[in-house]
């Protein structure tokens, strides 16, 4: 048992558990979170698949009697790793379980010669933030989680040459350089996700850009966007006005937009509100090929 642990646990690879068991432990670790974000088994399975979570390298903290006390998952993409779904059930915190889980995930990545790790932590979750700092993660910036309610009437789309894009065309755009994106918004997340399509607009003044998104049954989500020419806020407004005019009855949930993203004014102008913030943290140096993720 590592020295910092004051409770007897074993870290068991997550693939030894059913998706229902993993869902249960994940939800139990979040019951007292300010933003709990519970999941059912289907949503967790989709999450694992979309974000390349490797259950063989993810871990569950278990007591000798088999009680599950915590979980931590590891996403793997070529030379990058991502820590996610880390949590310990409330009455067993401050016994070193979170520390043991993070240390083991870092070891798992190191075994694969992966030295660059990413994660996001909810802003003001001080214990988790401190834990990651202790393990050498550093703050990169703040990320916004935005919502737009379907009851907000869409404004007429601004005059532009707008083209709807099918999945293939959207995938072509998503692979283009968008700078270093948070894990959830990297190309692979879109490639793994279903119901991806896109929109491209060109304005009379020559401005142009594109938006790729996921349209689920009730929600628009998972946005990637780029202004190719012109003012980003203007191009984003054109894109969003067309999108919401097209889908006036869908709720919208956009995750992990960087706080200094120049497209943001258009989101607020069209009725998006901030739900909460995350802090993005990195450990190590991004690999060179990462710039196209």
């Amino acid at each position: 048992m590592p020295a910092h642990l004051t409770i007897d646990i074993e870290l068991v690879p997550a693939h030894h558990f059913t998706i229902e068991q993993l869902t249960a432990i994940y939800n139990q670790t979040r019951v007292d979170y300010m933003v709990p974000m519970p999941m059912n088994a289907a949503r967790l399975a989709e999450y694992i698949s979309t974000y390349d979570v490797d259950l063989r390298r993810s871990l569950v903290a278990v007591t000798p009697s088999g009680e599950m006390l915590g979980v931590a998952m590891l996403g793997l993409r070529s030379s990058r790793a991502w820590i996610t779904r880390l949590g310990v059930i409330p009455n067993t915190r401050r016994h070193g379980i979170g520390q043991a889980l993070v240390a083991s995930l870092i070891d798992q990545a190191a075994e694969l010669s992966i030295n660059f790790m990413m994660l996001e932590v909810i802003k003001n979750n001080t214990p988790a933030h401190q834990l990651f700092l202790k393990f050498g993660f550093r703050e990169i910036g703040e990320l916004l989680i935005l919502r737009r309610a379907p009851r907000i009437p869409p404004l007429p789309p601004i005059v532009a040459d707008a083209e709807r894009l099918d999945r293939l065309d959207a995938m072509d755009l998503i692979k283009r350089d968008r700078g270093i994106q948070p894990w959830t918004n990297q190309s692979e997340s879109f490639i793994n996700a279903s119901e991806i399509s896109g929109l491209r607009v060109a304005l009379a003044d020559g401005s142009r850009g594109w938006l790729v998104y996921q349209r689920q049954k009730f929600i628009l989500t998972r946005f990637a966007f780029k202004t190719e020419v012109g003012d980003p806020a203007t191009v984003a407004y054109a894109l969003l006005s067309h999108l919401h005019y097209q889908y006036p009855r869908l709720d919208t949930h956009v995750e992990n937009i960087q706080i200094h993203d120049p497209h943001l004014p258009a989101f607020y102008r069209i009725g998006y509100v901030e739900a909460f913030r995350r802090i993005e943290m990195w450990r190590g140096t991004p690999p060179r090929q990462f710039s196209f993720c």
Partner: protein
Amino acid sequence: MTKILLIEDIPDNAELVRRALSATGYELIHAADAETGLQMALAHCPDLILLDLGLPDYDGQTLAGWLREEPALNATPIIALTAWPEETVRLMVESYGFDGYICKPITKTRVFVAQINSYLKTHP
């Protein structure tokens, strides 16, 4: 009898609400996820809906949007139950058409019941 639909996924929280309302004479019905909550709302037409914002299938904001689309439920008060910071909750309540919110954890039964009574009176 006044009927309240509670949509809350955490059993302990649901039990807390059940206990708090046990002496009021209100009938409490309960769903643990958004899809079941929508079905129960349509089937029972409750007088008030208490809606947790964090649900395992679709979150409370999305469900509030569905509920508001249903003509039979259009006037039913929907109250958000949440531990989010008040400033954020106010934004969500206004944006998504909730009729109000109650902050979790529910620690004072009398205050909680008074809040419920007040929402029922405002939306008879």
